[in-house]
């Protein structure tokens, strides 16, 4: 049974379609790596699947409250410590224990440190640890490995593999090799919206009311 299934999806950025006719299914234990050049619509697709923006057309089928999204920004509060940041998200998502998440991303030693004193890579690790406390099966990850060193990428790959082994799924936009040979690759290039097929911006177009 698939956790998320997408049929004939088209998404738009700034009122212009970037992806059209996208079909895929993501089942339990599966990971899909999104590939495509800059501007291909990877972030737009992930934000659309996360429910942050509406699709232009097509169907997205998934269980309600099954998706955890991690974007370019980590959503950390600089004035709070690592533990406080993670405990907040844990409380929002129903209060799972944060210790395994801290351990998985090697943050246990930094637990009492305020987030503003973390390096970029450490912040990113904290942002990824947040995924574990959401307890949601489908992870949508936008460039998760930015500013991570090789050791941390390996930690992340281990965490991801554990998540998949527990029946989770992940859709990952990334350019680097995560060391996940089992992940399928979805190249967005064939789904790129062709200009000229339809009027790009109808007269009187207003993005806010699109």
């Amino acid at each position, binding site marked *: 049974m698939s956790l998320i299934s997408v049929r004939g999806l088209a998404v738009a950025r700034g009122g212009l379609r970037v992806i059209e006719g996208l079909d895929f299914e993501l089942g339990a234990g599966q990971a899909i790596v999104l590939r495509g050049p800059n501007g291909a619509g990877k972030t737009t697709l992930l*934000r659309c699947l996360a429910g942050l923006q509406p699709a232009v057309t097509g169907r997205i089928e998934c269980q309600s409250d099954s*998706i955890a999204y991690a974007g370019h920004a*980590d959503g950390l509060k600089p*004035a*709070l410590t690592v533990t406080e940041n993670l405990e907040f998200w844990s409380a*929002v998502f129903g209060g799972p224990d944060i210790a395994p998440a801290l351990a998985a991303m090697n943050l246990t030693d930094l637990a009492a440190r305020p987030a503003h004193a973390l390096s970029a890579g450490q912040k990113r690790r904290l942002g990824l640890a947040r995924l574990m406390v959401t307890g949601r099966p489908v992870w949508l990850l936008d460039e998760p490995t930015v500013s991570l060193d090789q050791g941390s990428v390996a930690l992340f790959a281990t965490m991801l593999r554990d998540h998949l082994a527990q029946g989770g799924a992940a859709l990952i936009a990334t350019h680097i090799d995560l060391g996940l040979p089992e992940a399928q690759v979805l190249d967005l290039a064939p789904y790129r919206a062709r200009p000229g097929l339809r009027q790009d911006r109808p007269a009187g177009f207003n993005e806010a009311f699109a």
Partner: protein
Amino acid sequence: MKALLLRDLRLAVRAGGGFGLSLVFFLILCTLVPFGVGAEGGQLSRIAPGILWVGALLACLLSLDRIFALDHEDGSLDLLATAPLPLEGAVAIKALAHWLTTGLPLVVFAPLLGVLLHLPTAAYPLLVLSLALGTPALSMLGAFGAAITVGLRRGGLLLSLLVLPLYVPTLIFGAEVVRRGAVGADPTTPLVFLAGITLATLALVPFAAAAALRVNLR
């Protein structure tokens, strides 16, 4: 929801959170007025209700843009929008946190500043009551303005321009309550209107603000 409230309160009192700034602004404003209009008691006590209310309103305005802008910058707003918490609830909680850190201190310290402005003694209970009834509406309307301007560069000024007109009814009835208290008239009618405006704001604005946020997050 409790977690969000606790986090916002904690952020407000930590370094750089801005807790107390509005209060100090209110204090300075009310101290400056006697310098500007002269320290003559009769004149001051006549304008005191208006000054106290305008001061509270401006002090409240100072910290409004922080309600959503910071969360938007660091990405937590995206994550909150995808969290199990309804966005309407998140808006209400963030407005409540804003009121607890901005409005409530104003309510508590306003009588002290009333002394500076020669406010007649009879008006003190009504000053506290009217501010306690009116400032929640200021925070909630402010949250709406903040939701509309979230993501805009330099949105703070635009936010003030959008929100200040919405504050007019609260200001009129709030200052009227205190004025009537000062001259010994019956304050019931403006008090009821003030409470009504606040209740309507609390009931309706979270939905409008959440809708504005959803549009801005696209």
